[in-house]
């Protein structure tokens, strides 16, 4: 900016042209940001204050904060939020722990490391819809591969309806999510690991630190920036989980896998309560912001204590 202004004092016409060019170049991103981010955001906020019950435009009764209060007093909302928090914390936690392990394996100087890295990225490269179908067929009560394997190994005698009970189904959807997303976490952390100079470890070894001590005193503290990025990303993604639920269980059985995004979708598009759905969407944003802030605060204080 200052460069531009200084240039403007020297050669006014050229600078004006340059500014115009800058505007033209900025225009596409302005259109994108306002058209598909800011405008829908404000529109959704507006709709959340009205009782909108059709997808068409028109005049709708203004209800103020009624949508928000009825959501916050609905037992369904709280049950769904608790379920989604469970999904988020367990899946993100597992992905992080397994991801660190996997990242350490991927950075280890093994023969055929390139092959290992290529294999590990595969689950993440699968579209979620494929991943969901895959796991749904594995867990199928009648024809599923899991039942076939377990009975052929004589671990169980009869077939189990794996996705048949609410809590079990929720955990198995988490498993499917972890299987897919651990690779992403591992690759993020691998990038973090690669920035840690090897000579620190050598120095630590000279000082008499073992592998465990090196991990907790060097690797983990230096990984905190990478961990915080991946943790926030995964938390947001997990909290918004929709597609894998839609494919694997459609929220069943007995609503046991109905997460907040799926619930919002049902309210808005199946029940045509667009005002209510919009309010729910805003509450999701608030919850996600709170979660992210909490994570970052915790990680930051950890970082300080590691100094």
């Amino acid at each position: 900016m200052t460069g531009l202004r200084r240039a403007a004092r020297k050669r006014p016409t050229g600078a004006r042209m340059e500014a115009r060019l800058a505007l033209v170049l900025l225009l596409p991103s302005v259109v994108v940001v306002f058209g598909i981010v800011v405008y829908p955001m404000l529109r959704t906020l507006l709709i959340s204050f009205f009782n909108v019950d059709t997808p068409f435009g028109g005049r709708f009764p203004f209800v103020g904060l009624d949508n928000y209060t009825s959501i916050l007093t609905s037992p369904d909302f709280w049950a769904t939020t608790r379920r989604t928090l469970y999904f988020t914390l367990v899946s993100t936690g597992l992905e992080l722990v397994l991801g660190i392990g996997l990242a350490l394996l991927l950075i280890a100087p093994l023969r055929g490391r390139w092959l290992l890295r290529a294999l590990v990225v595969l689950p993440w490269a699968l579209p979620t819809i494929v991943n969901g179908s895959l796991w749904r067929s594995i867990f199928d009560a009648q024809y599923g591969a899991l039942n076939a394997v377990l009975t052929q190994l004589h671990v169980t005698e009869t077939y189990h309806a794996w996705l048949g009970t609410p809590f079990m189904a929720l955990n198995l959807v988490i498993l499917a999510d972890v299987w897919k997303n651990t690779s992403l976490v591992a690759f993020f952390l691998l990038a973090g690991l690669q920035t840690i100079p090897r000579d620190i470890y050598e120095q630590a070894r000279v000082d008499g630190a073992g592998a465990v001590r090196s991990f907790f005193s060097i690797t983990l503290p230096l990984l905190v920036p990478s961990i915080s990025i991946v943790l926030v990303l995964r938390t947001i993604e997990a909290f918004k989980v929709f597609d894998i639920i839609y494919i694997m269980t459609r929220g069943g059985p007995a609503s046991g896998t109905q997460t907040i995004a799926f619930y919002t979708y049902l309210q808005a598009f199946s029940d045509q309560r667009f005002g209510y759905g919009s309010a729910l969407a805003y509450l999701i944003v608030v919850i996600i912001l709170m979660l992210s802030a909490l994570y970052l605060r915790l990680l930051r204080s950890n970082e300080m204590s590691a100094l």
Partner: protein
Amino acid sequence: MSHHDLSAPNPSIVALSRRRLLGLAGATGIGLTLSACGIGGGGTSSSGGDNTGTINALFMKQAGFSEADILAMTKAFQGVNPKIKVNPTFVAYEALHDKTVAAAPAGTYDVVLIDVIWPAEFGSKKIVSDVTSKYPDAWKGEMFGGALQTALYQDKYYGVPWILDTKYFYSNKDLMAKAGVEPASLASWDGVIAAARQMKSKGVVDYPLVWSWSQAEALMCDYTQLLGAFGGKFLSDDGSKAAFNSGGGVAALEFMQMTLKDKLSNPSSTQALEEDVRKVISQGQAAFALNWTYMFGMANDPKESQVVGKLAIGQTPSGPAGRPGVNGSMALAVSAGSKNQKAAWTYIEFLTSQDQQNKYAKDSLPVWKSSYTDPAVIETNPQTVAAASKQLDSMILRPTVPNYNAVSQKMQAEIQKCLLGSKTAQQALDDAAKAADDILAS
């Protein structure tokens, strides 16, 4: 570089990244917010069009006419109407409602397939056009009453009946013979349960019954049949309050729960849709099931089935209050946002014509009464026509209220809680009734 320097990241970098991360968090979270609907946005003025041009039609993938049937009908239509081009789209039944709603403001589809439970919602919200004025009077006498109800809401027609369907009772003759079960004993649900126990005790089949009881509309279809058979009612007579939580409504759910508890019903039933039921029946892994007409055709297709010629199709078993069928018919509607209403109507007229319906009667029986005495139709599917002529006389509707979908979702969840054993039938239905009353009052 010293050890200390490296392990202590620059605080300003941390702060910056933290703020950016929060921004990122917000932006990504907001990405979830819903757009699609507008306040004070454009209305739905739609011109009639001039009976030419391109129309988009939305169909479902399963049950009723097959995708191949519909493509063949469409090809025939274009043969006689070369000026109209039709683009059919097929989605799963489970996605049909939401896709129709989401596409409505844009007028993406000119013709949409609507289920019997939607005219109240789609009609009152002007998602589909009122076509009452286009209905020839003769249709009202020539079509089955149960079919006409499919498109009717408050004396207006919102579509033309196309798929006249109900869930029939299927039984595997082979398995019954092995267990020594007489076909006549299947006239009542008591008889079916006795037969199932006999089959189980003789080890003929692990789980004699299989149902489509996943948390979906399919569950409601089975529950509706049983509710009717046990003498229950969905709503009070004035339609303002739930009534399924007393008498037959509770007895029906208790019956369902009992078949699971006694291991007469396949435990996978609570995750199954109609297609899953068809697969289990087609493998000979269950003896009895309720399902739509299409299962009979597919169960007799050697590529799809191991029970070719072994399956009987019949009227639903009776409970204490009779043997009604659930009305599972569907209609073709012109979407209100269509810019080509005339061409859409021409296409619907063609697909619903008696000629076309008779031709593909194997997968879905015609909505026209006289078809059932037409030898050509009877010949395509003699057993189904025989079962239909009895069953189609008594069909019951699910509640015709604009927010049926919300009521249904509540009921599905509560019924499943009972089926999975976390609530008694009475408790589950009481809870569902309470929620339904709130929805009906809103």
